[in-house]
């Protein structure tokens, strides 16, 4: 069953330098228990997409168009008071930097209990018990004692576990995870990934995992969506996209991962820089950096085409279509 259906989402930032279309027409949907990997460079709009779903975009940013259908109601239209009731309850979020997400002057129990009691009238004791079991679930040893600690008494990995435990507290239908393992070292990262995967599978929670790391997506996500300049340029089942990417940008991303059998060779890189979001080219935003781009790409932005594998693509010259006609 579909948990989340995002259609034509547009989130713009109204800055002095002009309107920045950070997210400009994003569509995707998510089933129960499904994990979507949202991939892209810095500034591609993937984090803003995540914050838009929770309606937590900071001013001057605003969701200006599209629908965010969550269990039948459109979050884009929901009044703020009802939105608050959903946040942390049906939709939870995990942030990038665990050192910054917990309030340094409040104890862990305060921060966990308030998350429970913001949504349910339960006794402090019951909320506390739920906090303890959530901490145990994410692998924090002796959770009952650790509840009385302050964030600075935890390591980065432990703090991220606490943040994940907070996200799990109310058994949400959807968790948006914004690069939650980027700030952690690799061993902790893989532990947390494995745990989150188990948790999502056990509880049927849908997961949007925002990252720039394709290796993370490969091990975790059911489907992957590649974002570039505020749009999803390619989406499909993870295996299909990683094995045979159709969009030249996906090809570039995959090519820039260090892999086996490449010792001594230069890593491939995508030429040029991420575009200035306040001043996008008129056609395909990737055209200036694309090795397949032609006059059509520079003049006209590609529409979405549906691929055979259930994937979708925004490209005039997909890789599987063979050589570019000149």
């Amino acid at each position, binding site marked *: 069953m579909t948990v989340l259906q995002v259609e034509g989402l547009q989130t713009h930032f109204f800055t002095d330098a002009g309107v920045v279309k950070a997210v400009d027409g994003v569509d995707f949907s998510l089933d129960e228990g499904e994990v979507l990997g949202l991939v892209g460079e810095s500034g591609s709009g993937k984090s803003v997409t995540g914050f838009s779903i929770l309606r937590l975009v900071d001013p001057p940013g605003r969701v200006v168009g599209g629908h965010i259908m969550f269990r039948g109601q459109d979050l884009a239209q929901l009044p703020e008071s009802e939105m608050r009731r959903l946040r942390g309850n049906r939709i939870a979020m995990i942030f990038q930097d665990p050192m910054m997400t*917990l309030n340094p002057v409040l104890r862990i129990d305060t921060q966990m209990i*308030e998350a429970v009691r913001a949504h349910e009238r339960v006794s402090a004791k019951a909320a506390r018990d739920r906090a303890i079991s959530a901490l145990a679930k994410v692998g924090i040893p002796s959770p009952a004692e650790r509840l009385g600690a*302050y964030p*600075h008494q935890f390591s980065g990995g432990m703090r991220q576990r606490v943040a994940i435990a907070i996200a799990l507290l109310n058994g949400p239908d959807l968790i948006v995870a914004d690069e939650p393992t980027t700030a952690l070292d690799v061993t902790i990262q893989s532990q947390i990934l494995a745990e989150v995967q188990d948790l999502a599978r056990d509880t049927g929670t849908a997961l949007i995992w925002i990252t720039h790391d394709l290796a993370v997506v490969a091990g975790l996500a059911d489907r992957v969506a590649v974002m570039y300049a505020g749009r999803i340029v390619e989406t499909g089942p993870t295996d299909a996209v990683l094995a045979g990417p159709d969009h030249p940008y996906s090809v570039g991303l995959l090519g820039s991962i260090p892999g086996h059998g490449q010792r001594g060779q230069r890593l491939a890189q995508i030429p040029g820089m991420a575009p200035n979001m306040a001043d996008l080219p008129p056609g395909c935003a990737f055209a200036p950096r694309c090795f397949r781009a032609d006059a059509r790409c520079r003049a006209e932005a590609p529409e979405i085409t549906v691929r055979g594998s259930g994937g979708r693509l925004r490209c005039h010259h997909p890789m599987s279509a063979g050589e570019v006609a000149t």
Partner: protein
Amino acid sequence: MLVYLLRRIAQSVFVALAMMVIVFFGIYMIGNPVDILISPDATPREIEETMARFGFDQPIHIQFFTFVGNALQGDLGRSFVHGESAVTLILHYMPATLELAALGLFFSILIGVPLGVYAGYKSDRWQGRAIMTGSIFGFSLPNFWVGMLLILIFAVELRWLPSTGRGDTVEVLGIRLSIFSENGLQYMILPALTLALYKASLVTRLARAGTQEALVQDYVKFARAKGVSETRILFVHVLKNIMIPIVTVLGLELGSMIAFAVVTETVFAWPGMGKLLIDSILTLDRPVIVAYLMMTVLIFIVINLVVDIVYTILDPRVRLTGGST
């Protein structure tokens, strides 16, 4: 924590000693109190006798050591005017000033913190701007003028509150206080508000700056993502983070409020230390001035110490490092 405290106390003793030197020689420069104490037509012999009685005929360094020696025994001399021990005199007037300062501090927090947090929350709206503009008045209006204006409005026009004096006092642990009697409290409100106005503007500005800074932090966004209400975010998550600078500044300001309540006490004829100081300066009553200044130093030292201890309560990170040393 204990080592830290001991170190702080040692520092304080040094500060007190340094202050003794400055106060003593500073007062010595002002003038000879004998000129005021005895009548102008006294004979040179009478003057010399008086000088000898107070020890003014000794060389200055001998006078200083006598002063330090006595001070270490808690004796800061006798008032030339009142004939009483200067310390006793100050202690007699001190409770009135302390309770006034305490109420003033309470008012400044009560007014300043909510206004500042709200102004920070609505910093780009008219509400926030209006509060900030208002706080400029708090800064710039002179104390005596505010006091007189308050008297004019609340005592003369509206007749809600008394204008001058101290009102009824209640004896608490042997100290006469107004704050616990309803009548006395009425007398305190106007002078305390006058004292509080400047501090309240200061607190407003501090709280606003802190709130603005805290609101963009990830932990606020994360609290929102948890579905926590805006009120709780402001008054739990933000407030606890901004209290550290506010406590520091208020601690220091409490000292200045006690020490320099002079103007307000004069306007409201409040019988506190400030009024005693003014009278003593007019009569060059040296021991009282010295005792007052030493007392002020002591108050500042104690307040700074208390502020440091309150820190550890507010900021768990300080507590941890303090505990490990």
